[in-house]
């Protein structure tokens, strides 16, 4: 397993947001993380990304347990997060955005050629055909293209796990499909993808496994192929569904 979370708990003051959450993601698979608002999806992501420290539990990457204390630690482990609000600079072009903060230099001079070539290769490897001119400003791109740039930026750094926070929330139908195809390709290339979404159609279109959080607890982790949408809806809304889901200490569903 590339990433193994075991018994992760996190409280903000008296409020327990995550309670003994287990989740493992393998390289080459898309794991969707679903759950209602307040179920703890964002908190879980921020714990993995090093923004929040966990109270208890372990995070293991390729079998070795790691402390992730900052986003830099996460990046060093190959974990990259694409946040909902993209975090691109409109006035910079595609290449400049992809390398922002990690520019390649030749002496003190920016090595724009090398960066452009690497950016082109990365987009090529992701089979991105929608962005033709790497030297256009991000401002002139559509929402789907911008999302593509944000994802490509995350992939550029030999990352092993890419976490996507609602990447299709603001996109139209065709653009959503493009981004979903891109997500699929990331997994096909051997990356692990944790994909957060509210849209179950999108989830079923792209995910190998579906992890449903319910009030800070992991209700179930299911193979997408053996699951129906209504089961997932039940898990999201009540935490259980036909013998699946959260049980009390006696093994009985509450």
């Amino acid at each position, binding site marked *: 397993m590339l990433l193994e979370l075991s018994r992760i708990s996190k409280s903000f003051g008296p409020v327990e947001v995550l309670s003994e959450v287990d989740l493992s993601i393998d390289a080459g698979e898309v794991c969707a993380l679903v759950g209602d608002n307040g179920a703890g999806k964002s908190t879980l992501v921020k714990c993995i990304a090093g923004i929040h420290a966990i109270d208890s539990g372990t995070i293991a990457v390729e079998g070795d347990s790691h402390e992730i204390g900052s*986003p*830099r630690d996460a990046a060093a482990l190959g974990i990259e997060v694409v*946040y909902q*609000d*993209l*975090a*691109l*600079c*409109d*006035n*910079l072009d595609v290449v*400049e955005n992809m390398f*922002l*903060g*990690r*520019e390649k*230099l030749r002496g*003190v*001079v*920016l090595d724009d*050629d090398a960066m*452009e*070539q690497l950016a*082109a290769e990365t987009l090529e490897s992701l089979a991105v055909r929608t962005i*033709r*001119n*790497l*030297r*256009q*400003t991000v*401002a*002139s*791109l*559509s929402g789907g293209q911008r999302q593509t740039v944000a994802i490509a930026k995350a992939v550029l750094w030999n990352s092993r796990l890419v976490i996507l926070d609602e990447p299709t929330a603001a996109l139209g139908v065709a653009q959503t499909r493009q981004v979903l195809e891109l997500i699929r390709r990331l997994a096909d290339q051997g990356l692990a993808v944790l994909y957060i979404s509210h849209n179950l159609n999108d989830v079923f279109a792209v995910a190998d496994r579906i992890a449903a959080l319910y009030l800070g607890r992991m209700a179930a982790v299911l193979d997408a192929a053996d699951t129906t949408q209504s089961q997932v809806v039940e898990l999201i809304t009540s935490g259980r569904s036909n013998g699946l889901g959260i049980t009390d200490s006696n093994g009985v569903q509450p």
Partner: protein
Amino acid sequence: MSIDVKTRPGSGAERTGPARQVLDHARAYLSKVRSGEVGALPAVAGIIALCLFFGALDPVFLSVGNLANLFGQGAAVACIAMGLVFVLIIGEIDLSAGFTSGVCAAIMAVILTDLGLSWPVGIGAAVIAGTVIGLTLGALVVKLGIPSFVVTLAAFLAFQGLALIILKEGTNITIDNEFVKDIAGGNLSRSHGWLLLAVTVVVYAAVQLSRWRRRSGRGLVHDPLPVVITRIAALTGLLTATVFLLNLERSANPQLVSLTGVPIVVVLLGALFVVGSFVLHRTRFGRHLYAVGGNREAALRAGVAVDRVRISAFVICSGMAAVGGIVAASRAASVDPNTGGSNVLLLSVGAAVIGGASLFGGKGTVRAALLGGAVVAIINNGMGLMGLSAGVRFAVTGLVLLLAAGVDAMSRGQGRLFGRH
């Protein structure tokens, strides 16, 4: 709406002829202009139109003497404007830049004339004073979070007083130092002018051609060779004409005193332009300046040292203002409490905006400041020749600034149709 100017090995670039490439390049440029990235276009068009207009009204405007004069008149404002660009790019403003230049000039004047020390001490002290001022302003804005408008407005008032205090309630200090007077008043010898031209052109051509070879060799986006060569030829022609004209005798009475050669201040402006452009476009710091101006949050998340970048912008701005103050003092051969005062700041901001810097941040180049500075200088010079009153000059400069800001706002609006923000 985007036109594919990307050529990759084997993608057909070899099969298309150079004429086709040039056409594609022109089309790509046109579409860029249409989508709102007008760049230096308005300023260049403005300079040409103004030259034709004033030249038609008064032939003296197009005389060689007046050409040399223009550089001297515009130099101080252009220096301050080049510095302001750095602050404008990060989306801040420095209203105190004018009086910063005044204070630094006053410090230099006191050191040179009252204390009788040598020019390296005077100029060094002025530039250090500018740097310290910039550091202070930047720290107040960045660390305390006071809006730059307020911090620099306060500094605007305070520095006006500081200049008065340094100059002992308003005396006028004459500058006798020949070196300092030569900065804005001296000229290169004819041969040095030609030598400088040759070096500039050779270096420019070498940089352009090597860049073209490198990029086309790697199969990256590159301008077609004919365009590159045209650009080199155009610069060569323009500079040659300028040096030729400036090397002509422009003294009214050549037997008495000969006045020829490229003004030294042109060399100074050229050097600041090259260094400034290099910093903005070829270094990591420059890239981060634009990033901070475009989306501070994104820059922060990408690991940019946002605070340090922002403070540095203020330091550069005030440092350049100090240089502008030295130039102004050199041109007047004296410093008084009004040096860097009255409309100097507004003309500088105007120059940067006319050239294409945006008050909304994220946009602007050193070249823009130079071109905008030229527009401002030409308007003042031309209308002065026409004998118009200072009142009319202010009013017209104001209108031109409004026009430039309008072009900026409109180009943003135009861009929005194409998905810009």
